[in-house]
Structures are given as C-alpha cells and as structure tokens.
C-alpha cells in the first residue's frame, strides 16, 4: 500500500472533523441554543428593557387653591403620556412620596400662582430625585418642555394640538431614536458573546469528556482541529446574526439603510475574530464553566462598556479611550450603526474592517500558538 499524499489525508481528516462537528451540533441542542436562542432573549431583554429615556415619569403635583391657570396646568401634566401624576395636598405629603421613591419629582405651585402669573413673575418649584443624575436631567427637561407647551397654548388661548411645537419633537423623538441607535450596537455585543462562547465551550467540552485526548493521539494537526471548529461555528454564528438583524428590522422597526453585502462582509470578519478569541480562551480554560466565565468577563463586558454602544467613547478619560482601540466590538458597533442608520459609508467600513481583520489575525495567531498538541 502506498501512503496517501499528505494533502489528501489532511483533507480527509478535516472532512471527518467537520462532519463530526456538524452531527454534534444537530444532536446536542446547546450550541444551537447559544447561536439562536441567546440573541433572541438578549435582544428582547435589552431591546425592550434598555432605553435611555424614561417613560411615564411619576411626579407629585402640589396644587394650590383651585384657579383656572393652576387647574389647566395640572390638566396638561395629567394629559401628557410622559407623566403619571399624583396629586398631593401639600408639599410635606409630596416629600413623603419622594422619600419613598413613589415619585421621581415634585411640581409645586404656590397659592398665589394665578395672581403672580398675571403679573408675570409666577414661580413653579421643581424638585427632582437626583439619585440617578441622568434620569433627573431628563425629568427636568420633560417638565420644562411640558411647561413651555402649556405656556404656548395659553398664549393662543386654547390647548395646543400635540406635536405642533418644534421643541416637542426633540423630546419625543429622543426615545424612538435611542432604540434605533442602541439596537445595532446591541447586535454587535451579542455577536461578541456568541462567537466567544461557541468555540470556547465546545473545545472545553472536548476536554471535559476526554475526547480531546483521543483526537490528539491521532495524526491530526492543531490547525486541522481549529478549522474543524471555526467553519461550523462560523455558519452557526452567522445564522444567529441573521436572526438578530431580522429582529432589529422587523420587530423593533430599526431602519436598515446599508447593503446586505456590507453587512455580510463586516459581520463575517467580526465573527471570525470572535470565534478566534473563543479558541484562544479555550487554550487556557479546559472546563466549560471556566470557559463560559472567561468569555463573559473578557469578551462580553469590555464590549458592553468600552465599545461606545452605550457609553460615549468621547466622554471617557484619554487612557480609557486608548484602551477602546483594542476592543474589536468598537469597530463593529461603529460600522453597524452606520450601516443601519446612515447607509453604506465605505470609508467607515474600510477603516473598521481593516482594524477587525488585524484583530482577527492576532487572535487566530494567539490561539494557534497557545494550543499545543499536548496534555501538559
């Protein structure tokens, strides 16, 4: 028997590994769950749960002795979809509500509100729960907006039809905009987690079940094992990506203004980087538990915090800003946001894509160097 040519036997080994991995994916639901169920759950959770803009702000309204302007202002607050109003008899009761965190702010009118309004120096006191500074500012803005709207309507002698004043639009669209802006970033974060978890968990599983030892004892090469892991999970991860994008567009109504080609290209590069990172993790974590923890702490958290998806990179200290350059999610977030909201801006894609290719190459090199065909 003549020995088979090396390239032929390498192909056969890779084919065997791919076939095996594919059968395992079909029969063990855990990787399918990571690729498809995880993005759905996370998108639901963050898509509906995370919004930078509070809705239905609960405020206490301290109404003075009944007068036409005071009643009308109270009515405007109550009619606004952005407030849920509790009427309080005096400021002490309102404070109690604030202390118990049942309301986020107090709007208080003095007894002489009507008279002072006519003379032009009426005072409206606004107390906001400042524990969450971000929310406090937004509540402040809402109250101001509502007040301005009431004043404008009063000047015309009738309550204004909603949405006529330009100011309103800024406030009200802010909520819608933030979700359009958040979800593309969120897809990037979810793909980071999925990519890193898929490969690190399945490699750790082989260690845990002792199959890695048996694989290593055959003439297989490390790079063949790596290809056997990358290819199937690339396809699975891209499937997850498709699900997430479809949800963004059809469920959350995020506009998609770029091209499918750009999406496939950028997310393909990014998926390779994330999977390669998972392989690098698996070189040091040989149990699924450790692999999962490491993937979450070292891939998901930095991506979440340092990618600019939720916290603006420009407002970070310069040292942290430097650090964000080595977070691959940063480039993908930027490209995805552009792709969804703006369209194909190839200058952005080229810059981000080049950075991602570089990072993917580095991760692959680390994974390749750190994985040895040894049980040491």
């Amino acid at each position, binding site marked *: 028997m003549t020995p088979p040519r090396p390239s032929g036997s390498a192909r056969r080994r890779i084919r065997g590994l791919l076939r095996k991995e594919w059968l395992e994916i079909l029969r063990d639901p855990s990787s399918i769950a990571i690729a498809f169920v995880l993005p759905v759950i996370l998108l639901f959770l963050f898509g509906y749960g995370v919004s930078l803009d509070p809705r239905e702000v609960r405020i206490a309204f301290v109404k003075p002795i009944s007068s036409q302007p005071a009643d009308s202002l109270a009515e405007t607050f109550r009619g606004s979809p952005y407030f849920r109003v509790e009427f309080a008899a005096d400021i002490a009761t309102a404070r109690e509500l604030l202390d118990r965190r049942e309301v986020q702010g107090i709007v208080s009118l003095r007894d002489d509100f009507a008279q002072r309004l006519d003379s032009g120096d009426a005072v409206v006191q606004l107390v906001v729960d400042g524990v969450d500074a971000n929310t406090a500012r937004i509540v402040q803005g809402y109250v101001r907006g509502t007040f301005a709207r009431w004043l404008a309507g009063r000047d015309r002698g009738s309550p204004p039809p909603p949405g006529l004043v330009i100011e309103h639009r800024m406030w009200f669209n802010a909520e819608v905009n933030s979700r359009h802006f958040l979800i593309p970033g969120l897809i990037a974060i979810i793909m980071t987690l999925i990519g890193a978890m898929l490969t690190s968990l399945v490699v750790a599983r082989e260690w845990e*079940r002792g199959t890695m030892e048996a694989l290593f004892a055959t*003439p297989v090469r490390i790079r063949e094992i790596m290809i056997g892991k990358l290819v199937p999970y690339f396809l699975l991860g891209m499937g997850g990506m498709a699900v997430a994008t479809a949800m963004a567009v059809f469920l959350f109504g995020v506009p998609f203004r770029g091209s499918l080609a750009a999406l496939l290209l950028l997310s393909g590069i990014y998926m390779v980087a994330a999977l390669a990172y998972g392989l690098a993790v698996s070189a040091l974590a040989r149990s699924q538990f450790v692999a999962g923890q490491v993937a979450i702490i070292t891939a998901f958290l930095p991506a979440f915090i340092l990618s600019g998806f939720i916290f603006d990179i420009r407002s970070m200290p310069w040292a942290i800003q430097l650090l964000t350059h080595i977070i691959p999610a940063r480039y993908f977030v930027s490209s995805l946001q552009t792709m969804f909201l703006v369209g194909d801006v190839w200058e952005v894609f080229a810059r981000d894509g080049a950075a991602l290719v570089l990072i993917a190459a580095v991760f692959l090199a680390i994974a390749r160097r750190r994985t040895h065909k040894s049980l*040491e």
Partner: protein
Amino acid sequence: MTAAVRLEGVTKRFRADRGVIEALAELSFTLEPLCFVGLVGPDGAGKTTLMRLLAGLLLPEEGRVTVLGLDTRDAARAVQARVGYMPQRFGLYDDLSVRENLELYADLHGLEGELRRERLREILQATELAPFTDRFAGRLSGGMRQKLAMGAALLKTPELLLLDEPSVGVDPLSRRELWQLVQHLAGGRATILWSTAYLDEAERCERVLVLQEGRLIADGRPAELTRGLEGRVFRVRTARGSRRPLMRLLRDRPDTLDVTAVGGALRLVVKEKEAAEEVRGIEGVRGMEPVAPRLEDAVVALLQQTTGNEDGRPATGGPPADPPAPRREMREVVIRVRDLVRVFGKFRAVDGIGFEVRRGEIFGLLGPNGAGKSTTFKMLCGLLPPSSGEARVLGYDLLRAAPAARAHIGYMAQKFSLYADLTPRQNLLFTADAYGLTGARRRRRLAATIAEFGLEAMLDQRSRDLPLGYKQRLSMACALLNEPEILFLDEPTSGVDPLARRAFWARIVALAEAGVTVMVTTHFLDEAEYCDRIAILERGRLLGVGTPDGIIEAARRNAPGVANLEDAFVALLEERRKQAA
C-alpha cells in the same frame, strides 16, 4: 530488529499546588516488537503518564522516549500515525452513532477505499456491534462502549497498541471478551501495552511491568516473577467457623508474608518453606496443600520489601472499641429490602431487588459499573427516596423516616469527600460537630479514632497532599466517629495497591467482629471472599445472593468448570443472557 518501545532514564514531573510531583522517576526499559505486555500499579503509580509519553502527548523532562525507532520529542505525529491509543476515558462522542464514531477515527487515521471498508466490517463484526451501528455511543452499555473504543484504537492496525485500563468497571464477562477482542484483532501483529489495576489480568500477559510511585519495581515474565515463591504458597482449609480468627492469627505470625481468604479457605504465603510445618499444627487448620504462586503474591512480597510503609501492615493488634457483641444479637436483621425499585425517567436503575442483612455481617454488593450498586447504597443511606418497594434500616422505614435512620449509619463515599483544603484534624473536628458530638464523648471518640487509625503522623498536613491510602483511612475514620451501627463503604479499595487493600479489609473484618454491620461495594471479585454474604447485581437486577461459597456451588450445578467467584459471575451472566435471548 528495532525495539517497539525504548525508555532511557525518563523522568516526568508535574507542578502541583505545593512543589513538584514526580510522576515517573528515571524509568528505563525496552519492549520487544509483538510482545503482549501488562502494566500494573495502583492509582498514582504513573501508568497513565507512561501511556501518554508513549503516545507523544507528553514529553519527558529528562531522558528519551523512543517509539518504533522514533524519538517522541522530534516525531510525535509520525509516532501517532503508527500507534493506537485507547485513553482511560475512551474518547467516544456520545452524540455520534457507533458507525459515525468509527468513521471519524477512520478519517483521522487516513483509512481509505477498500481497506477502510474491509477494516470497518472486520471491527464491527469482532466487537459484535454490527447490529447496533446506528445506536448512539452514549446509549451503549459499559462493556459495549469499551469494545467500541478499543475498535476505534485498532482501526488502522497499529504497530503499538496502548490500552489505558480498558477493563476497569466492567463485568467479568465483558473483561474476558475485551481480552479476546485484542488478541483477535492485534495479537501477533502489534506490540500491546495493557494497563490494569487487576493483577490476575496482568498475569495472563507475556510480560509484566509493575509500577509503584513512578518506579518500576518489577519487570519480567509472570512465571519468572513468581518463581521465588515456589513452594511457599498454600491453601489452608479450616474448621467450620474458625476461618476469621485463624486468619488473624496467621497474619500476626512473623513468618507470614500474606494471608487472604479465597474460595472458602485461606491462602497463605510464608517467608520460609519451613514455616509451613508449624502452621499445619495450629488448631483449626484442617489441611494444607501447596498451590502455584500468583502474580499478586509476588507483588505483595515486593511491596513489603520496597515500601515497608505504614499502610502495609494493618494495625491488627488494636483492640476493638467495644467488646464483641453477644452471639444472639448477631442474628438480628438490621437491613431488610424487598422489591426495591428506583426509576430515573424510563431507566430502571434498581429493578426489584430484595435481601436481608444481619447485625455484624459483612455484606458485599458486587457488579459492574451501572449495575445499580451506588443507587441501592444511596437509597439505604436515606440519600435517595426509593420509587417503590420496601427498605428498612434498623427498623426505620426509609420511605418515611430516612433522617432518623441516618443518625445510626456511617457512609464512606467512593471519592474522597472530605475537605481537601482542611487538615485531617480539622476534618475530624468538623465531622464531630456535624454529628453533634460534645463533651467527654467527643474527646473520647476523637482520641480513640486517631489512635485506632494511626492518624497522628499527618494530622496537621493539608488533606489534599496526603497519600491515597492515608486519605482512605481518614475517610473511614470520619465515617466511624459517631460509632454507627451500620457502615456503608462504596468502592473503598478502588485504586489502592494490594497492601493497602489488605490493611483495609483487616480493619473491616475487625469492625464486623465488634458488632458493626458493614455494607460494601467492590468490583474486585477476590475481595468478595472477605464478605460473609454477597449479592451480585447486573442491570438493576439480582443475579444471586448468598455466601461466596454458596454462589460458587450454585453456579457449579450448571457449569461444572466454575472454580472461583469470577467464574461463577460469568456463568450466572451467561445464563441470564441466554434466558433473555
């Protein structure tokens, strides 16, 4: 002719929590081609490390490993292309079918065309797995899994076959089938290295390597190794009821090398031939005939010379904590099991078993992995509620009053289940607290236990770093701290060397004589000889209950060739399978 394996001064170390563990120390030997070699030694002796070195999966710190003329340091892949390796954990994919597993390894070994088809057919036929090619590996029985793993290692007829404890945990029938499988598929065509914890298995190899603490303490043909013991091994027949006292008496004699229970008699190895005459005159000895020495005798002799360790000679003298229980109490039934069933989903782990155990008995539960031994144990300890049937321990119904029963039992789990980061002293104190021992009784029990089990020497070391035999003593000491009426021991001797096994059994026998009832599981069939009565379990059902001799007698009625308990087990299994078919 090139040697199949050559080791020259090989040392392999591992970094541990504290310092460095030397797994193999300056090991040198050569294996001739086409030789069938047995590798024996207790857990931690270095068997697996040696296998991995030979498969090129580990590299030595010092020395050189040459396999089939290739240095594993330079040519690991070339070695791997010509070696078949069956790791201890098999390396089967549970979610893949029998055929898919074999196809994968055929791909990895580059088998193609007609040869591939031919070889797959041959392996499936030889392993008798042909009817199950579409069954997932995870759904095969223990014996079938092992055969499949062996088939995968043998796919590309290797020049060197490495089998790391292929027969551990399977029933004796499957063990025999595995042995035949290897002979059939690779015998005479490959050098075979078969590692095992069973000395009787190694004895059938052409050559035996005995490893102890990383060193080769014996190497040669079994006949050579036992030659020195020729004429010093006897079968001692005893008068009725005097076997146990006689055993203790013989063990304490300075000229005794070893004494064990076997097939209703005792097996005695003496240091000098002359001592035999003296023994013949001892009261209770009915007769003595010389028998052929076994490999185990040789290993015990060697271990006693080389280690002389504190695990070796049991503290046989130590008086039992309590005076022996009166005779009539020995008759009282303390465990009663009837139609006991435990179901996990669709799987009947225990399927209607029944037996009784009397006070002061040593009752053995025997069977391969997955037979239902541990499940039965957990139910009797009140750790797992039975699905149906009756289980009474000391009169308490386990369906209703499991916690009340638990206060009177001690349990030693199969794995070391104390706190590895605490010292033995801290573990003992914690156990005392857990049992609610206080005051004078606490002090008395702690002092007595430490003395009885000889724990003083290492009381303040971290438990993690203790030798395996010492860990086992500590586990048993903790299980006995509360003076339980019944002691449950789950595989107490798996993985320890023959000397430590003997010491352990001496302790168990002493406890039983003090009135403690002992329930024990084991997969060493020779150990069952120490038991008063045994129950053999297979796939959740009882194959037989009775005294070891009684079971052998019963099996002999159908299969006249039955000589020992292992033969009896195999005969019972074959009969059961015939009935099922």
